[in-house]
């Protein structure tokens, strides 16, 4: 570890991830805290917690069997479904909500919970799949000999659960902080407010930072309460990693259950990705007025014409955020893992940017950058780039730390003995050895930035993003152009990962 590099990384993390939150907290005074304990606040908090638990449970119930089936069994075309299973987390939840609202009469809390659960289930599925793959083949064979598949699963579930629960806590955090889905669902049905859109409303009506922050404190507490045990779960899930003589488990034969398993996998994918996307294609092609390819083409032409600048902005901001977050995350993630006990103690700090609602993080960004000396940054696209980089940096740090934990320390020690200094070791040995995690976490930042609305909605520069345009468009009526624009967003979000999957043999490591 290079101390100057780590200090530089910490400085950047403090500026991008912690300073917005610290500045926000400083603006709260005693008077602002009164509203925290109102009846409405309690009701919203309860509702938000229920939403989070519901979405996390949905993600768990769908994600664990999905992850198991596509990673360990002979379900037909398992590899294809494994890659396709990532699709729902790449889709902006707003886009999925738009489609489901069009296809069904589901509204209110149930619709919000289902949409957010379906959008976050891939997190659980990915973690569960990885955990199932890390079970030693001999352990599994011993359990199979004792009592068949059921006994083997019973023996393995306790090993998989820390990983799955860790992912579910992330699903919980993403759900309780989501602003766009409840807001959209409320706009097409009965009003169903949650804490995040109440914070937004509070800020929009008064522009009072202190009041907005105070009103969000219970949500911050709820998020922190979820993330704290998540770190312990993460540690346990990393402990179930390969030992020196690890033997990969064999593919499990499902027998007569093979085809029902395929139906389950396809049903999950249909509900979470294929149906919403199909609905958007149908809407872009004319929808209820009759589908035609000429209308579809016209919708895309209009979407490209009206949304071109927004797409370019979103792509620029997302790429910029990834390029900033990855080097900082590489330095800090590597240091976090290699620092041993100290690293474990500092790990909660890394999660702070995620522990505040996205809208609050956006308000913090305004408090930090909207001042005369940094006005040029605030008014430019840099504001969006820095905001996204700060918000999503924890994913990079944790993904790199997880990958570092799997890297044989002797790889670095031998470079050290060979005479390479800390910076050279990081650039020439650690980064290439961790390239699946480096590129994967960069892609995660790109994807999350592309679909980001909640933190960006208040920041003028970020108002040029394509998701902001989409958000405005769905509130002023839906037509083919809006659906086509949503499809374009989806295309650009999934394109980098798709290209990687098609042309590169190495599997990306994206899990924090």
């Amino acid at each position, binding site marked *: 570890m290079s101390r100057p590099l780590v200090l530089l990384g910490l400085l950047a993390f403090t500026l991008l991830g912690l300073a917005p939150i610290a500045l926000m907290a400083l603006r709260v005074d005693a008077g602002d805290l009164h509203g925290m304990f109102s009846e409405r606040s309690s009701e919203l908090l309860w509702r938000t917690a229920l939403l989070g638990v519901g979405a996390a449970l949905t993600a768990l119930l769908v994600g664990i069997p999905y992850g198991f089936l596509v990673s360990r069994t002979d379900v037909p075309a398992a590899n294809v479904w494994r890659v396709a299973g990532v699709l729902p987390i790449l889709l902006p939840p707003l886009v999925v909500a738009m489609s489901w609202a069009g296809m069904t009469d589901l509204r209110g809390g149930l619709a919000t919970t289902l949409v957010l659960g379906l959008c976050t289930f891939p997190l659980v599925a990915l973690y569960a799949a990885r955990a199932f793959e890390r079970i030693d083949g001999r352990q599994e064979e011993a359990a199979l000999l004792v009592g068949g598949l059921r006994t083997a699963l019973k023996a393995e579930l306790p090993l998989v659960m820390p990983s799955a629960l860790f992912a579910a806590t992330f699903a919980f955090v993403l759900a309780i902080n989501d602003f766009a889905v409840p807001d959209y669902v409320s706009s097409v049905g009965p009003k169903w407010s949650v804490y995040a859109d109440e914070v937004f409303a509070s800020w929009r009506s008064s522009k009072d930072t202190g009041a907005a922050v105070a009103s969000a404190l219970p949500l911050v507490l709820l998020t922190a309460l979820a993330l704290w045990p998540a770190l312990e779960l993460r540690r346990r899930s990393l402990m179930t990693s390969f030992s020196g003589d690890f033997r990969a488990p064999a593919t499990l034969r499902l027998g007569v259950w093979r085809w029902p398993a395929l139906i389950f996998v396809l049903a999950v994918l249909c509900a979470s990705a294929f149906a919403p996307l199909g609905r958007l294609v149908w809407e872009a092609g004319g929808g209820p007025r009759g589908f035609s390819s000429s209308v579809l083409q016209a919708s895309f032409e209009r979407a490209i014409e009206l949304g071109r600048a927004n797409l370019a902005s979103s792509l620029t901001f997302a790429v910029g955020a990834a390029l900033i977050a990855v080097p900082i995350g590489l330095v800090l993630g590597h240091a976090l893992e290699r620092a041993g006990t100290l690293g474990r103690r500092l790990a909660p700090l890394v999660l702070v940017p995620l522990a505040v609602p996205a809208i609050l993080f956006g308000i913090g960004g305004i408090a930090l950058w909207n001042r005369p000396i940094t006005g040029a940054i605030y008014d430019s696209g840099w504001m969006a780039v820095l905001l996204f980089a700060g918000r999503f940096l924890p994913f990079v740090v944790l993904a790199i730390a997880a990958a570092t934990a799997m890297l044989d320390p002797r790889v670095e*020690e*031998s*470079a*050290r*003995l060979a005479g*390479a200094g800390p910076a050279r070791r990081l650039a020439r*040995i650690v980064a*290439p050895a961790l390239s699946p995690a480096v590129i994967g976490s960069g892609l995660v930042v790109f994807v999350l930035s592309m679909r980001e609305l909640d933190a960006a909605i208040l920041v003028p520069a970020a108002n040029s993003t394509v998701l902001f345009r989409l958000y405005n468009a769905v509130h002023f009526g839906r037509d083919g152009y809006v659906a086509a624009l949503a499809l374009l967003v989806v295309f650009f979000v999934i394109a980098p990962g798709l290209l990687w999957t098609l042309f590169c043999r190495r599997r990306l490591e994206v899990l924090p």
Partner: protein
Amino acid sequence: MNALSLENLRVELGGKCVLGPIDLRIPAGTWTLFVGPSGSGKTTLLRAIAGLVAPVAGRVLLADLVASDGPRISIPPERRAIGLVFQGGGAGLWPHMSVRATLEFVLAAHKVPRADRARRIAELVELVELRGLEGRRPGELSGGEAQRVALARALAHDPKLLLLDEPLGPLDARLRHDLAARIHDVHTRRGLTTLHVTHDPDEALPFADRTVRLEGGRIAVEKLD
């Protein structure tokens, strides 16, 4: 002159003393064999000498220069002129680098002029008999080939001290004999000081100038061969 001196060296891992106190002088140009049961502290001793673990007490002197005094490291591992071959078949090799890139990396880190690097790489490849495999990565090499890459890497920067941690363990009998002889040849020609950890003294006994037996983290027997 002593190439290495250990004075009252003590190492703790997880709050438990795993090595020491150790007092030892290793004359330059000698081959010292360290033997002992598993957990006797052999690997930890090499790691402390290399500076990869910080002792809690005692001093490590390299050619009479203090490399570490208690937990304070005064010469970092990268400046100790030490080559280390790790335990295991090519353990610690850089998975993304070919044989050539690995050796090039070490030479570049030691600021060997670019013009000289190709010649040096060819010499090293010749030395460990890896000709024709220069473009291969660790994943494309057998255990024996990987171990020879590890040896070439350890020798690339002309170390004064060569630390071998069970370097022949994963190899078959013929390869063990060949590689041991080859290492001894390099040791003699370059005037290296070699510290060789093994659980099987037979593999290098003919070359050793002295044997040190460790038990429970302490020197149990030290004898000249």
